């Protein structure tokens, strides 16, 4: 079993690094998701095209390969990144691309009459977005964002292969040092599960608040753990095209295949 010294020098900081990577990558991903998601609804075709190309490229890319590439190949192009930041950017770029689909989908799902009302009131585009569309789309984004955050948390384990000392890295060190594998890896799995559980609880709370903010009642959801209502969606599904609404619905004909 692991010594207490090992625990305090590697494992606890490892947990902290995992949390840090998750938070930083989520922040970067959120910025990218909103930027790209909004750009994909732009009136200018060139903006739409660039954002769409970004989405297609990074959705087709494997996060691990991207991370390796940023860590090993990017320095040769004259750009040296710290391992931690290489990991964070790779995760942020990939999951941001998935997130842009959620943003685009839930904005598109706001009833057209709402936008027309905004036009009738002579709101500018920016005012319409900020005061009418986003507040209504926001609660719809919560459940799919929750799924995405959990995928991101799981993705953070990848940074251990580019030498970032997260908790998976600590686990591997211990394996190399002591050949004890059963307790460490079991503990790791449980820790990730607990973190995922915490994220889900937090997102549920956010969703309840967001719904209350626009005068909606949160839908009742049963189930254990992190199912969060809909199909346990993996991001980047092409089926997710139709957007957030279809994914967040509880099991039903629409939640499969994303919709039409």
């Amino acid at each position: 079993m692991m010594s207490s010294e090992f625990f305090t020098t590697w494992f606890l900081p490892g947990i902290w690094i995992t949390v840090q990577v998750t938070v930083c990558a989520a922040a970067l991903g959120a910025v990218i998701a909103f930027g790209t998601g909004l750009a994909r609804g732009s009136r200018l075709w060139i903006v739409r095209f660039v954002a769409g190309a970004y989405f297609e490229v990074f959705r087709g890319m494997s996060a691990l390969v991207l991370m390796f590439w940023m860590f090993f190949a990017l320095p040769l192009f004259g750009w040296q990144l710290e391992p931690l930041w290489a990991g964070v950017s790779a995760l942020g770029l990939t999951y941001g691309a998935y997130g842009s689909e959620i943003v685009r989908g839930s904005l598109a799902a706001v009833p057209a009459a709402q936008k027309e009302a905004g036009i009738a009131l002579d709101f500018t585009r920016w005012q319409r977005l900020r005061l009418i569309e986003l507040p209504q789309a926001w609660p719809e984004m919560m459940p799919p964002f929750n799924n995405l955050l959990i995928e991101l948390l799981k993705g953070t384990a990848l940074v251990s292969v580019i030498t970032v000392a997260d908790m998976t890295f600590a686990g591997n060190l211990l394996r190399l040092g002591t050949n004890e594998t059963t307790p460490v890896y079991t503990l790791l799995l449980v820790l990730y599960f607990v973190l995922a559980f915490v994220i889900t609880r937090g997102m549920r709370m956010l969703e309840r608040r967001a719904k209350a903010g626009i005068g909606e009642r949160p839908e009742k959801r049963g189930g254990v753990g992190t199912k969060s209502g809909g199909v346990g969606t993996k991001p980047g599904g092409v089926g997710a095209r139709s957007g957030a609404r279809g994914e967040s619905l509880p099991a039903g004909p629409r939640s499969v295949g994303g919709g039409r």
Partner: protein
Amino acid sequence: MNWDWNVVDDFMPRFWDGVLVTLQALAVGSLIAFALGLVWALAQRSARVWVRWPVVAVTEFIRNTPLLVQLFFLFYVVPNFGPSMSPLTTGIVGLGLHYSTYTAEVYRAGIDGVPAGQWEAATALSLSRGRTWRVVILPQAVRRVVPPLGNYVIAMLKDSPMIATIGAFDMLGEAQTFSNETFTTEALTVVGVAFIVIAYPASLLIRALERRLVR
């Protein structure tokens, strides 16, 4: 920036070996995921609590923990108790197991999506349980299920390089060893581009399939 096409040429034979291994892992992994997912989905619908509950707990646990750590678990921990498997086999089992928890949800939603009237009609015609499933429910569930299953195959493709971390020689594994031997990085770029080249047409294909199957 220094890009050397000769390095790329040298890498190509190994690259194709890697592509083969990746596709092999993907094919077998998908088969495991499809089959096991159906087992989970049916078990989750079981009337017996002691069947349903453990299955729900296990699938939730597998879905919410990283594939990478699961691979390490399968590769380093499982041999302490049970069979020890080659890196590639472990990788395939890991991929299949991880994604079976996603496909289980797809099946569940697909089966739930069949209107209740279909079940009632089957009862009214006094079809047996097996016949109800075989000729009424599953054929209708399948067309809802195929596009999302295809999406998970693509997602699995993107997660497949993880099996390189336990020593399998898929595309990434080949690129890594090649880069380490020659102190170059072109191989990694080639593999990165290859992923996009494989994944993008595949996703177009599934979009087309989705338009045809789901009306």
